[in-house]
């Protein structure tokens, strides 16, 4: 379906590269924004650079890069400073003071841009949403080593390189000041200095990216890939690496999706920048579902497996008790389901598994433990009855709650714990109800 023939490499290649570079440069810094719980400050700065951009347009009457960079960086830093001030003086929380600063600056920037649009070749829409397709056109290109490279690629390439250098060179400093600002400061790495260095580069990145992904969507590039990477690993280096890869994947799939997906619904192709941001969101959802540490799916599977294991053990224990007491209870499936209050599907699969492992066999009056099943059951029942002893003598648990508590604990008792239990209760031979405690097999 993804025929390559409709991709014009001279154009699509540059677009994807621009997307990749802006994703990479943003993701590199974004890790530290996410870890410092300052994602919103990244958002604020990338919006607030707008008046800086506009001022540079108005003053220099061109889209030349240097005045733009300087203006935007200055305003970006001011955002960080103002936010601190308002928080300090106004006694409002950080979120509110950021909201005040960046919406005011952003609005100011909008007004200025609309004004500027009359004088300068500048489209407000492009500034806000990016026009990666236009920016990557060869009409505005520089010659780099004999190659004609679109200007936006050169700029983004330089910023990616600067950010990479920054993260590599100051890795240790960024790590310590993000984890424990006071330790950083007392170790001779002033946390405020690293904070403002980081914010300066965020501003630079926002400016460099505004032509490609736009002033608004750069936030997605700053925050979402690192947040997704955070779901997948608990090592910082790996998190940074993953965030970069996720950014790249989002850029490429974003462009392909922008070209193809609207076609499925009979529309023309859509904006690449928007689709890139959508892709980061999709990847985040995947990471949140599948992540090994925080993943929703993994947690669900673990819980299911645990409850199945507990049910398996309960079945074995139940069959053992029936054989011990003589058959006053039914040991067929319906009987087990009644006694253990088990769901039909879970019970069916547990019984099938136990038969397959050879721990139980099916007889005409119901299920019966095999020799290996008896061994398992004895260990389990031994744990259960030792726990009852322990709970009565050591923990002072009342007789009426004894069984329920031991029923839970028996599933989490390995051989070592069982030995210690036996020692602490001075190796009793019967449980508090007078039933025999099976001896240890070892």
């Amino acid at each position, binding site marked *: 379906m993804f025929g390559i023939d409709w991709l014009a490499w001279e154009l699509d290649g540059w677009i994807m590269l621009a997307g990749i570079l802006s994703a990479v440069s943003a993701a590199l810094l974004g890790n530290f924004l996410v870890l410092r719980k300052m994602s919103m400050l990244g958002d604020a700065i990338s919006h607030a650079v707008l008046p800086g951009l506009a001022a540079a347009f108005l003053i220099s009457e061109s889209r030349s890069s240097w005045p733009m960079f300087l203006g935007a960086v200055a305003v970006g830093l001011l955002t960080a400073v103002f936010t601190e001030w308002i928080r300090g003086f106004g006694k409002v929380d950080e979120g509110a003071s950021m909201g005040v600063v960046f919406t005011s600056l952003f609005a100011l920037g909008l007004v200025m841009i609309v004004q500027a649009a009359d004088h300068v070749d500048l489209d407000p829409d492009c500034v806000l949403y990016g026009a990666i397709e236009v920016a990557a056109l060869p009409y505005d290109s520089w010659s780099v080593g004999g190659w004609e490279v679109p200007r936006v690629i050169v700029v983004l390439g330089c910023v990616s390189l600067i950010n990479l250098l920054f993260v590599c060179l100051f890795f240790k400093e960024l790590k310590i000041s993000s*984890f*424990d600002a006071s330790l950083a*400061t007392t170790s001779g790495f002033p946390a405020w200095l690293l904070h403002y260095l980081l914010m300066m580069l965020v501003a630079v990145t926002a400016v460099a990216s505004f032509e490609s992904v736009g002033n608004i969507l750069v936030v997605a590039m700053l925050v979402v890939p690192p947040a997704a990477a955070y779901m997948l690993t608990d090592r910082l280096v790996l998190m940074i690496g993953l965030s970069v890869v996720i950014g790249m994947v989002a850029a490429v799939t974003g462009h392909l999706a922008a070209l193809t997906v609207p076609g499925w619904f009979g529309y023309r192709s859509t904006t690449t920048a928007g689709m890139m941001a959508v892709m980061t969101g999709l990847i985040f959802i995947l990471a949140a579902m599948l992540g090994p540490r925080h993943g929703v799916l993994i947690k669900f599977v673990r819980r299911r497996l645990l409850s199945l294991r507990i049910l398996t053990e309960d079945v074995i224990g139940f069959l053992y008790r029936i054989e011990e007491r003589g058959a006053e209870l039914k040991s067929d499936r319906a009987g087990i389901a009644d006694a253990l209050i088990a769901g039909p599907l879970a019970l069916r699969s547990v019984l099938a598994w136990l038969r397959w492992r050879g721990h139980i066999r099916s007889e005409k009056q119901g299920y019966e433990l095999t020799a290996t099943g008896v061994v398992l059951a004895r260990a389990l029942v031994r744990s259960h009855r030792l726990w009852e002893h322990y709970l009565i003598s050591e923990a002072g648990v009342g007789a009426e709650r004894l069984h329920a508590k031991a029923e839970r604990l028996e599933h989490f008792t390995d051989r070592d714990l069982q030995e210690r239990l036996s020692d602490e209760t001075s190796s009793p031979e019967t449980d508090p109800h007078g039933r025999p405690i099976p001896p240890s097999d070892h």
Partner: protein
Amino acid sequence: MSSVAATVPAGRAVDSPLSIYDLTVAYHRKPVLWDVSVDFPKGQLIGVVGPNGAGKSTLIKAVMELIPTASGEIRVFGKPYRKNRRRVGYVPQRESVDWDFPVDALDVVTMGLYGQIGWCLPVRRKHRQQAAEALERVGLADLAHRQISQLSGGQQQRTFLARALVQDADLYLMDEPFAAVDAATEQAIIEILQEMKNRGKTVLVIHHDLQTVADYFDYVVLLNMRVVAHGPVATTFTQENLQKTYGGRLTLLEEATEAMRRREKTL
């Protein structure tokens, strides 16, 4: 304010590891510490005790210049903190950091060496070795590669302690190292502190449990916005002084502060 002699009155110990004179700290113009003057003795375990909001954490943060001071003079081994920063180790409150941060216990301990390593230079094998040894000393050798949120509260606290150990400072400032740890960990921690003391370190500990003050510390500072009393535990940690520190209703100082704040708001 240029020389020690000019600001520290005669008779004050100049070689004290930590000498605080006339320190006042305020948050939003509300004084938190008022005229604090103490010369901490060298090579002792020192407990800083006082009710919530007495300014205990503020005191050690002011020493390390983490917060601005309104007035006063602080000397660390006779010099301003800046000049002797390396000789001071800090153990912050456990809740002050994000334990979900993607680092393992060894990483956290290694951070104690970053100051010695210096700007932009990488962490080397010998640094990690040093950190691993410190983890072993606090009994966490086999948890070195565990992500820090998967450590128990007591293990997290011991990780912090290991980090302080690798700093190899002469004066340690610890903010509630015994908060919310089990009895066994508390015992392990106090043994380490005692060992540090035996090696000539001065250890200043913010402490909450009045029951154990007499057992753990040599010297005690009773703090409630101002220094109520300070001295050897045997003579200073008395019922009368405790009564003054924790006792009853607002102190006159607090009442004056309240009045100041109300005046400011109505203006």
